[in-house]
């Protein structure tokens, strides 16, 4: 743990925590609470077309199919989901919400070189990564009906957006978002109990009704795996800061968001599918960043150890 925090402080002092800093201007910072949002004119983010503008006919049908997969993935892309999560758990408002990695912000910036797999990824390949890691499932073939529908939905949502330009509100607002102090597990636990457990449960395993997630599990066997972007502290902290508690985004302090992100990402979750038998080697190959707690010891437990999750 000490190692991680020291490494963390060190890396953050040098670069943007080894993550490529987002070139976007400061995100719509500290988006005020909804009352003020409603009153504030001139949104600084891209506005995707209204859902009611989805056209009739075969194209519209596929767009709607994509939306349905996006908002209820276990039902509509069952074969490729391993954990019961839906895309919309981390991309709020069916992929429309600014600063919640909206589809309209992602579609136009692919193809893109990704360090994660060391090659140029098409948008479809990027979506495959979501299924493999965040959904702890398997990648739908690029020409599968599910993938075509998701790509069509994203393409439609990006109607009128520029190609190859990072828009304000795209991704999670990571640029310049640093913890005042290194994130701390014990403080994070307090933040969790006071702000998150209400919905995600004291055990962090979410809440289900009739076998469907109402509130998604944050860790454990039904959550995203160790290869998912959300297991990295900077992604989780930025997402939490902008979007959590649900409908109360930008109410936690920066420190609280980092602390609770660390608390979440210091819990055990399904193994990284790239695991090669050695936690240390897997960390060295894929998680060699202070933003990942994989392969480090927290609370006396080696995160990512094959027997870690029961």
């Amino acid at each position: 743990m000490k190692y991680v925090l020291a490494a963390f402080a060190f890396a953050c002092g040098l670069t943007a925590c080894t993550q490529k800093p987002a070139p976007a201007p400061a995100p719509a910072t500290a988006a005020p609470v909804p009352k003020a949002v409603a009153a504030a004119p001139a949104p600084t983010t891209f506005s995707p077309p209204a859902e009611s503008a989805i056209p009739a006919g075969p194209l519209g049908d596929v767009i709607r199919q994509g939306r349905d997969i996006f908002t209820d993935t276990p039902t509509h892309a069952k074969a490729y989901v391993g954990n019961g999560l839906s895309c919309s758990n981390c991309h709020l408002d069916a992929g429309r919400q600014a600063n919640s990695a909206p589809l309209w912000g992602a579609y136009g910036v692919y193809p893109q070189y990704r360090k994660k797999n060391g090659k140029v990824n098409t948008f479809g390949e990027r979506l495959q990564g979501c299924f493999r890691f965040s959904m702890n499932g398997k990648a739908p073939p690029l020409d599968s009906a599910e993938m075509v529908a998701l790509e069509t939905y994203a393409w439609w949502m990006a109607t009128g957006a520029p190609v190859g330009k990072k828009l304000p509100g795209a991704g999670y607002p990571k640029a310049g978002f640093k913890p005042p102090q290194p994130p701390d597990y014990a403080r994070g636990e307090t933040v969790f109990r006071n702000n998150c457990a209400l919905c995600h449960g004291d055990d962090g395993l979410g809440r289900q009704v009739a076998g469907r997630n109402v509130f998604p599990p944050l860790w454990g066997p039904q959550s995203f795996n160790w290869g998912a972007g959300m297991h990295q502290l900077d992604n989780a902290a930025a997402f939490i800061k902008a979007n959590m508690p649900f409908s109360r985004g930008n109410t936690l302090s920066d420190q609280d968001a980092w602390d609770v992100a660390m608390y979440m990402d210091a819990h055990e979750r399904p193994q990284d599918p790239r695991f090669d038998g050695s936690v240390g080697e897997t960390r060295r190959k894929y998680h060699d960043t202070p933003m990942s707690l994989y392969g480090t010891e927290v609370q006396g437990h080696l995160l990512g150890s094959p027997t870690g999750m029961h």
Partner: protein
Amino acid sequence: MFRPAIRRLFGIVALAGIGMPPAALAVDAAAIAHAGNGRGAAPCMACHGADGAGQAAADNPRLAGLDAAYLRKQLDDFASGTRSNPVMQPMATALSEDERHAMATYYSQLPLAMKPATALPAPDSAGAVLATRGDWSRGVPGCVQCHGPGGSGVGANFPPLAGQPASYIEAQLKAWQEGTRHNDPLQLMQHLSAALSAQDIESVAAWFAAQPVPVAETAP
């Protein structure tokens, strides 16, 4: 022979003392629901219906099948004044703490009569969209994102909305909005209700009131 019997007797006395306080044993929740407690608490069913399904004409909510911890908190909040209501505050105050908790358990276990869906508003109607998807441009999540598919209810903090009279849902949304009801965790309801128009409130209440009970497994 003698000593085990003593021990057993001792055990029974200890169990009774710890697990079942005499006052709790004495509460007959069904009797209170039907006839009141004789100390100022009126029969619950007079306003909440013989089956606990509520009375739409008088804004009186459904109680049957709600989460016990939720009901218990509401009764305790009425008694302490944390939740205000001219009718319920005197009732809750007239109930002892044990009686309040017994009533919460009683109603949580009362099965709610099945109710078919009634004239369900179209999926693209304003009420349906607000209920299932919300309006995030105003910071309003879909109601079902916390209250469960079809408004089924989720745990102790997100009560069912399906099967509640539209008039009750409307009255509560307005109470959150005006701040006259403020016993919500994390101020979730006070906060989001502030963004709703009177028309929003009416249409979303109508959507939930039209839902079937129990909600369909495929409900949005």
